[in-house]
């Protein structure tokens, strides 16, 4: 199993969730984070205002997924979250040793 972590522009969250739903993925965990990027002093639109600040609000999505489906999930997030402009974000893929669904005790691919 893999844990996919994507850092994306906040306004892209709904679109990414919908795109994931199209490939049967519904379970995800989301957090609000602050991004600091390679490109300095660029402006980004956030809640209707232009920012020229050092941190930019981002959204982090975590998705645990079976190995054989990981590439498809990465591709889906990439295609949906992309605007082509600076700050679109990153996708990281990590290996999970174990996953467990607390409610039922199911492990491995049955947990997610």
């Amino acid at each position, binding site marked *: 199993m893999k844990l996919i972590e994507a850092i994306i522009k906040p306004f892209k969250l709904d679109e990414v969730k919908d795109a994931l*739903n199209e*490939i*049967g*993925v*519904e379970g995800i965990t989301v957090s609000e984070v602050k991004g600091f990027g390679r490109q300095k002093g660029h402006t980004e639109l956030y809640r209707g205002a232009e920012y020229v600040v050092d941190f930019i609000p981002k959204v982090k999505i975590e998705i645990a997924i079976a190995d054989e*489906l990981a590439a*498809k999930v990465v591709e889906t997030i990439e295609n949906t979250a992309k605007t082509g402009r600076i700050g679109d974000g990153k996708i990281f893929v990590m290996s999970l040793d174990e996953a467990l*669904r607390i409610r039922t005790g199911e492990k491995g691919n*049955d947990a997610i």
Partner: protein
Amino acid sequence: MEFMTAAEIRAKYGVLKEIVGGGWLRLKPGQVTDDTEMSLCVARAVVAANGWSREGIAANFAAWLRSKPVDVGDTCRRGIRNYMLKGELETPYNQWDAGNGACMRMLPVSLCTLGDDRLLARCAVEQAHITHNHPFSDAACIYLGKLVHLAVLGYSKTRLRRELEGLLTSHENFRFEPYRGLASGYVVDTLQTVFHYFFTARDFEDCLIKVVNQGGDADTTGAIAGMLAGAYYGEENIPRRWLKKMDRKVVDEVSLLAERLVTLSPWAAAR
């Protein structure tokens, strides 16, 4: 009533005899959920193809999953997702696949295979394996189909009970006398609950009220009991007041599909 225990139901409703909606999904009265919707996927696929079509069923399951249904079982989601992303029509054997998710879709399978036991067995397992691959689930699906066939053709409860002995002999764990009162999503618990109340109930309403008030995986035990009791007691035995609360469009479509499915069956072809 889904996910409530029998005691919780008694405390909250006494005995629930009316269609009231609510529950963990906050449903409107008469709104249907995954049991009905997945059955509709099967029925529509068979009618559209004028015959059995595993690919058509899987495609309908996928379209249904994408439509953000009000609930989807974990095992069903995984199986349908594997079909969407890998094109697999059969999920590999899994010791944890002994849930009731394949059984709850058996009514359309039974109708279109009326008159042919071997066809029933093949189709029952093919549709089951899209999401659930386990011998307990397979056996349960096949026997539910056989009982629906007998019921629809007018056989007595005694005859049905005799047919069921085949399952209880090959799979002792399905024995439901004495009834243990378990009504979870585990296919053995589900079928024990359905069989216990079906064989001891006096009519459709009595059977369904008792099954659903047992709690547990109540939407599915209710759906399967409804399938058996409906086939056995007939349409006129369904309480008018319940039918009035059902989503009209669903009722109409189900009636239409049911008739079409039977006309596609070997039994109809032989007439």
